[in-house]
């Protein structure tokens, strides 16, 4: 057992510094439903943590708490030692759908955050142009979202999240709407950027394969109410490429996590309508 827990890390960790700390968090909605109950775990700097679990386990709620878009009922969430709201500068959020503004061209969508933060135009344009190159969209800079495919829209969304140079990335099922091919390609690209930028990442997904491929650790949540069921290191070597998906290790790991996920039992608390 000892040798398997010693997992290779792609990004050097800063002395177990919990960049995101979730302690005893309970979230109840006004209507009475409990989304999360006594959830605790930490995400270290440079970690890629996926949240996995059936619907109703509060994955998305958890992400919104970390982003400061909703508040806890009990417990605390700290991001880099600050309240989530104060830490927003460090954080970028990528939503399930691309959430682009249809009246803005690609480049103006990507520059949105900088514009809202009143970054001067020359700096803004330079940063945007750079980022469009990173995600391979420099040719469609002047187009409107309606002229793009689903995969391209998601790329714009990612570019938009990256221009503000975040340290922490929160992704809420970002590739769920894509076909499998595009999804795999986006995953590889995300990993490449992760290794390059050394973010701390929290990633919500329904797909075990996606979680295994991307993560250093996987948090499996149980539903009704949302609780932490398992926290698992991903035993898969780095760097990971498209070849990784063909290996036995990968398949084995996907199987292991899937079994854990299937073993998760819902609690007593049913959602109150």
């Amino acid at each position, binding site marked *: 057992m000892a040798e398997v827990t010693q997992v290779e890390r792609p990004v050097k960790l800063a002395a177990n510094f919990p960049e995101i700390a979730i302690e005893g968090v309970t979230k109840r909605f006004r209507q009475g439903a409990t989304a999360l109950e006594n959830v605790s775990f930490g995400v270290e700097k440079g970690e890629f943590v996926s949240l996995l679990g059936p619907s109703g386990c509060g994955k998305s709620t958890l992400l919104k708490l970390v*982003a400061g878009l909703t508040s806890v009922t009990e417990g605390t969430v700290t991001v880099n030692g600050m309240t989530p709201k104060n830490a*927003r500068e460090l954080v970028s959020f990528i939503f399930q*759908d691309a*959430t682009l503004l249809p009246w803005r061209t690609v480049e103006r969508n990507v520059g949105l955050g900088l514009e*809202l933060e009143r970054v001067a135009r020359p700096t803004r344009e330079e940063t945007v142009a750079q980022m469009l190159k990173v995600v391979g969209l420099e040719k469609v800079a002047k187009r*409107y*979202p309606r002229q793009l495919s689903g995969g391209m829209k998601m790329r714009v969304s990612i570019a938009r999240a990256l221009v503000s140079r975040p340290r922490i990335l929160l992704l809420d099922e970002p590739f769920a709407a894509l076909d499998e091919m595009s999804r795999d390609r986006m995953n590889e690209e995300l990993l490449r950027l992760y290794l390059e930028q050394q973010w701390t990442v929290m990633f919500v997904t329904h797909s075990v394969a996606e979680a295994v491929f991307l993560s250093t650790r996987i948090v499996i949540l149980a539903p009704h109410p949302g609780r932490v069921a398992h926290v698992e290191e991903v035993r898969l070597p780095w760097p990971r490429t498209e070849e990784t998906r063909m290996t036995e290790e990968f398949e084995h790991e996907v199987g292991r996590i899937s079994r854990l996920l299937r073993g998760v039992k819902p609690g007593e608390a049913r959602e109150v309508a």
Partner: protein
Amino acid sequence: MKRQLWLAANSLVVFLLLLVVWQVAVKALHVPAYMLPGPRAVARAVVERFGSLEQSFLLTAEEAVVGLLASIVVGVGVSLVFAQFSLLRRVLYPYTILLQTVPIVAIAPLILMWAGPGLISVAMVAFLICLPPMIANTTQGLVSVEENLVHLFLMHKATPMQVLLQLRLPHALPNLFVGIRISAGIAVIGAITGELFAGSSRVGEGGLGYSILYASGQLETDYLFALVVAAAVLGFVFFFAGMFAEWYFLHDWFDGNLTEVP
């Protein structure tokens, strides 16, 4: 495109056929001209009295434009306030619906009594019937923004003003133009209704509505028909101007249909 042209040609044929039937019927049945003039008589009236027709047309157009523009400015302003203060919206929104259900013919005399006859009071009648669809459609666009988009703005520390002007307002543009399209059509009706009550101190200087009243009083039925044709043309012009504005401002990025709030 070809199919559309074909359909347009068909409509034109139907129209011409109607004119022929009309003309023949009037001739054959010896209908007196003051009851129902034939299309030729109407055409003659248009040509012979084109000057006063044009004057009435332009006056009504001006009143309708003033009313429409005022309804756009006030409607968008009210909608922005509604979008920002939901409590205010919930309290006041029913009254905009109420405004719509009050028959305009019933309040037009009041407005004229208060504001006196003239362009302002006629434009105000047009304004009043244009306002509810402007508010209803624009407000709907402003408040129907996806929650995630608001979150996105909040993540970048956007101020409430930034959310309103850079997210909600552009998001509401398609709805706003639906409102303009609806209001443009009824602005002309409003202006003509207003004129029916406003009248004019000098003969021949009233708008279409006043002239219709005058012509019917004088049994100048051929001119009355000419005025009706002018009113229809004016309505068309407004409606298509609204459609064009919508296309001009939105065709770059917007493709889709919206549900109208009448």
